[in-house]
């Protein structure tokens, strides 16, 4: 039996191969490595910590079930991101009762600057339409290009560009307090 340090030291492609063969500990290591990334992506997408964690859990459960179909272990990251976006899109289409919760602001007290900025950013993102929000999050959080976002979301490239351009303008208006403060609000 392999030990935990073996998993934590191994390259991701090796861990993915092991998890693909049903190794529970290997999958646990993958979740540990990727959970913050997926949860942050979901938090920016839906603006609610509880819903984001619930959707992130769905992403990893789907990943566990679909992992044997992943042919190239080196593509685990992009594959997981596609799963996450699909889970989010499905959630939107289902009009899940939890969606109501997704519209609510997190009540968590901002204990540090990054948490406060995250809350302000999520509040500003909440003013965008769902599709626009997804495009903006994928562009800024994931660093994806217009073409990549279009492929991932099945939206025309022109629509993606438009969503990002308008979304960026809208966010700048909402986050005007941070102008010229290097990430700190001007009137905080």
């Amino acid at each position: 039996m392999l030990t935990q340090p073996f998993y934590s030291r191994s390259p991701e492609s090796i861990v993915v191969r092991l998890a693909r063969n049903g190794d529970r500990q290997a999958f646990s290591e993958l979740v540990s490595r990727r959970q913050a990334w997926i949860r942050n992506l979901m938090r920016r997408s839906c603006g609610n910590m509880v819903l984001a964690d619930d959707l992130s859990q769905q992403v990893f459960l789907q990943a566990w079930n679909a992992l044997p179909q992943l042919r190239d272990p080196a593509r685990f990251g992009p594959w997981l991101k596609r799963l996450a976006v699909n889970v989010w899109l499905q959630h939107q289409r289902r009009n899940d009762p939890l969606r109501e919760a997704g519209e609510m602001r997190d009540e968590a007290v901002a204990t540090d600057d990054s948490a406060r900025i995250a809350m302000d950013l999520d509040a500003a993102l909440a003013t965008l339409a769902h599709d626009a929000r997804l495009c903006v999050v994928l562009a800024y959080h994931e660093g994806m290009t217009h073409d990549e976002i279009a492929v991932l979301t099945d939206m025309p490239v022109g629509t993606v560009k438009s969503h990002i351009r308008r979304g960026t303008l809208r966010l700048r208006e909402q986050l005007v307090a941070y102008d010229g403060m290097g990430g700190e609000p001007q009137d905080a």
Partner: protein
Amino acid sequence: MERDPLLQKLFDIANHDLPGEAFLAGIMAEIDALRRRAIIAWTAAGLVLAAAAWLLTPMMVAAVNLISQALPQSLIKIDDPSAMINLVLSPLNSVAAVVAVTVLVMVLAYRKIF
């Protein structure tokens, strides 16, 4: 693709590390529950299949016997087994041949239509 520097910075700052112990525990517990459910489901399915096979075996054997007796039956009776017409028709002159040709035609028609 050009990105707004301020927004990029805010996204980067907001993208902080999250403690994952409870999250990980929740996922692994759910995976274990899924495994347990799958084992129970497969066991139940196996038991149902075994019971069905045990109950249906006599009927299935009778059906197989009936079919195996019916398939080689000739469609056209030819008295002289050595007659040329019998040699020519023998590959098609049976219930099995008719069934095979019918299935083949249906498959071809299905492919043509759909």
